[in-house]
């Protein structure tokens, strides 16, 4: 039942004292005439309402969540405790910097740590999410070319396996997308890339994830970034898959010029049912002068004291968002980085890769692996084309079967280059016992596909609702509750 249907006139939460000055109201010209229909609820009913909603949802704490490319690792509780400190939550973003030294220190420390992990020289925390980071990175590339007078550089190369945000971000940045097909191993086709790039002075750059969306590390990465640089383009690293390589390989060393990270994936901050995330962007020295927002510098020239202060980049492309990004998310990520430290960070990636390979090898017999890699990184892609053909059971059906087993399904139908794709990313924070249990379920579901496919077409049956009519929802949209 919706909160509006539980509302009873006259109920409410006693939040505010009486107004202690003369009560005034705006003149009639600006006075609201439209009726309000907000819920009127006693606190007990409100509390139960949201507890009920939580029971009808599935979080990382409810069970295994191997959602590919989303890095649904465990979200440490200490992160939440620290981010709730009044010393962070009660600070106004426009307070003078000398009264917000702790906040500036957080920004400085996490920026420096991210620089070290990625091999970049500067970071901005302003982008609020991965897609926002992509937009920022592309604007950096745009500003760089414009400053060089290269107004014609508007083409951005994106591999066919890329996330949908890549092409959408390119268009927001005023660029035109050139898709380059992958080779039969799921990697960038070097010949095709050369063909597009050679002598082409319209290339603005390249967007790439490495490891890619199939969980494969591209061994030709240096050559790829060289080809782009040779034709005058810049290379953008989509950090969606960084959890595979922290402390093992750095985008900066691979030849990338700028990068975005997802603190809500790699650095353990919760997804919140879709956000808030944080998509900080890093760049090398040659792009630093175009960075948006402000950076924290060591010394305030207006003061005798040794204080941190904000400085603006000399040719800054502007502001991506109000203030300094999703600050509290950065607080959580910094807490996590401090706990893991220099040994724990590579250790996390190592175990993420181990868990993925363990699971991939155990499932190989029953499920075909896209591109059949010997070793994968932090995730792997199953291709259920064979099951679909032989039994009629699709990737979607297996996913729905997992729901009945309290396992969140892998990412479905992505990358687009694999037809019946299930992309699984187990994460380092899952135990062998959890993985073994999930492997057992995956194998059972494959058996059911061959013995009783109808059962999977009907799944899920144990969830609060069964499969929903998405066509009806889109044809005749009901997008809010209608009051009588």
């Amino acid at each position: 039942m919706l909160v509006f249907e539980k509302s009873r006139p006259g109920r409410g939460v006693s939040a505010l004292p009486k107004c202690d000055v003369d009560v005034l109201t705006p003149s009639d010209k600006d006075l609201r005439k439209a009726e309000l229909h907000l819920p009127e609820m006693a606190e007990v009913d409100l509390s139960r309402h949201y507890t009920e909603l939580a029971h009808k949802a599935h979080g990382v704490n409810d069970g295994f969540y191997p959602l590919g490319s989303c890095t649904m690792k465990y979200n440490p509780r200490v992160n939440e405790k620290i981010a709730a400190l009044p010393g962070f939550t009660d600070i106004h973003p426009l307070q003078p910097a000398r009264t917000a030294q702790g906040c500036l220190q957080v920004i400085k420390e996490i920026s420096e740590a991210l620089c070290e992990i990625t091999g970049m020289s500067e970071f901005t925390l302003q982008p609020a999410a991965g897609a926002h980071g992509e937009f920022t990175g592309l604007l950096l590339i745009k500003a760089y070319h414009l400053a060089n007078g290269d107004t014609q550089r508007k083409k951005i190369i994106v591999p066919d396996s890329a996330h949908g945000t890549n092409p959408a971000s390119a268009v927001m940045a005023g660029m035109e997308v050139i898709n380059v097909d992958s080779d039969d191993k799921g990697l960038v086709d070097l010949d095709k890339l050369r063909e597009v790039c050679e002598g082409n002075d319209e290339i603005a750059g390249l967007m790439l994830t490495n490891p890619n969306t199939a969980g494969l590390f591209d061994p030709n990465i240096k050559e790829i970034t060289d080809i782009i640089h040779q034709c005058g383009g810049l290379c953008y690293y989509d950090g969606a898959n960084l959890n595979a390589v922290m402390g093992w390989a750095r985008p900066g060393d691979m030849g990338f010029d700028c990068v975005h990270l997802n603190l809500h994936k790699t650095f353990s901050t919760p997804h919140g049912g879709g956000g808030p995330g944080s998509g900080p962007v890093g760049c090398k020295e040659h792009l630093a002068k175009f960075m948006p927002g402000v950076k924290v510098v060591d010394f305030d020239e207006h003061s005798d004291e040794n204080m941190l202060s904000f400085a603006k980049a000399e040719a800054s492309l502007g502001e991506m968002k109000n203030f300094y990004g999703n600050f509290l998310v950065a607080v959580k990520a910094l807490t996590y980085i401090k706990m893991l430290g220099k040994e724990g960070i590579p250790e996390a990636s190592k175990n993420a890769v181990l868990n993925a390979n363990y699971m991939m090898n155990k499932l190989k017999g029953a499920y075909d692996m896209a591109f059949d890699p010997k070793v994968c990184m932090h995730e792997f892609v199953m291709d259920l084309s064979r099951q679909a053909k032989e039994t009629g059971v699709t990737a979607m059906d297996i996913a729905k079967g997992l729901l009945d087993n309290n396992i969140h399904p892998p990412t479905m139908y992505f990358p687009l280059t694999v037809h019946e794709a299930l992309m699984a990313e187990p994460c380092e924070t899952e135990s062998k016992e959890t993985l073994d249990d999930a492997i057992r379920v995956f194998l059972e579901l494959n058996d059911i596909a061959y013995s009783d496919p109808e059962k999977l077409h009907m799944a899920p049956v144990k969830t609060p609702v069964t499969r929903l009519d998405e066509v009806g929802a889109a044809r005749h949209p009901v997008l809010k509750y209608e009051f009588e």
Partner: protein
Amino acid sequence: MGTFVPNTKEQQLEMLREIGYEKLDDLFAHIPDDVKFQGELDLPAGMSEMEVAAEMQKIADKNVIYQSIFRGAGAYKHYIPAIVGSVISNETLQTAYTPYQAEISQGVLQSIFEYQTMICDLTGMDVSNASVYDGATAAGEAVAMCRERKQNKALISGAIQPSVMKVIETYCFGNEMELEVIEVKDGKTDLDDLKAKMSDEIACVYIQHPNYFGNLEDAAEIGEIAHSFKKCKYIMGVNPISLGILKTPREYGADFAVGEGQPLGLPIAFGGPYLGFMASVDSMKRKLPGRIVGQTVDHNGKTGYVLTLQAREQHIRREKASSNICSNQALCALAVGVYLAAMGNQGIRDVATQCYSKAHYMAKRMEEIGFTVENKDYFHEFVTTSETDIHVILKALSNEGILGGQPLDLHRILWCCTEMNSKADIDRVIDILKEV
């Protein structure tokens, strides 16, 4: 070092051997040497939870927590009922992913559907999305989505929050939409300048109401001018708290209502996370970026909720999508939903009325002690001018634990009052100011 890896070293080796490897490094053997990172990351060693908690507390302690805040300018300190924090700390709601798997995400989906309904109710609009990053990006997205082949220019009021203007400029730098600023006259959008700048090429007119200086705009008249050209859309950026007593964007004739959702139950938190809300009239719903939840039924006819109208979005429309937004600020939208449900109709009217009344009380008191108040019709922010250097004023207040208004120039300050500022606090400010 701290770790969140549950498997013991022995288990790790056991798993590795089971799949035919000797040591963990073998799994990284295919990374070419020329890009493999050598040595150790230049970071401090890891720590226990107790050590990190102490260190982070020490960092937090370096910040000054003002007990009394008279600064808004885009971030507003309001009272947040305890239930808001309690709900968004729920481990399931907090750690869930985007609700793509609808069958196990009904709780998240329903909360978004309720949020959409409340935003529509507040703004008077027909359709709301599930949130974007903040008020500034909501403005940037709104301007961008109005762009048409023959309408590639936006008119933006010069009286909007400066950082919002900067973000709109950034979005326009990206998509190469033209942007022209409408002049400000007496602290408000200049209607004559707007009229002079209108043409067939204008995609949209964007104003903020109440504007950056706290003033109420001639919002209905601006809407009429904007709509005198058929293709032009009218976007209003509004403070959601003000809608407890001020006319809705719909009543003023807007096509889109956007704004900063932070005042509805989110802490000021050094600028984020906040959320941007975006709502439109029904005919514009397919222009909205971001996720939207719709009601439907399952196979058994039971009511349920799904993400819908997804063909607008980047994961389907790719390079033809009008926005790339993917992650939004869902948990913040949940906080807004809980806040509005806790406050209820009377609560939201009370907050708005208290903001309005206290700001007007403070302005009157400031006039009494010799400040000039620039505003005539305003909500909860106003600008004062005085002979005294603003640094002297703000320092005197800061010494007493009070964060004064936002300095605009050497003699002008933008003040803000909310329900958090008691009469005693306001009187104290007046007493301190009398001395300087």
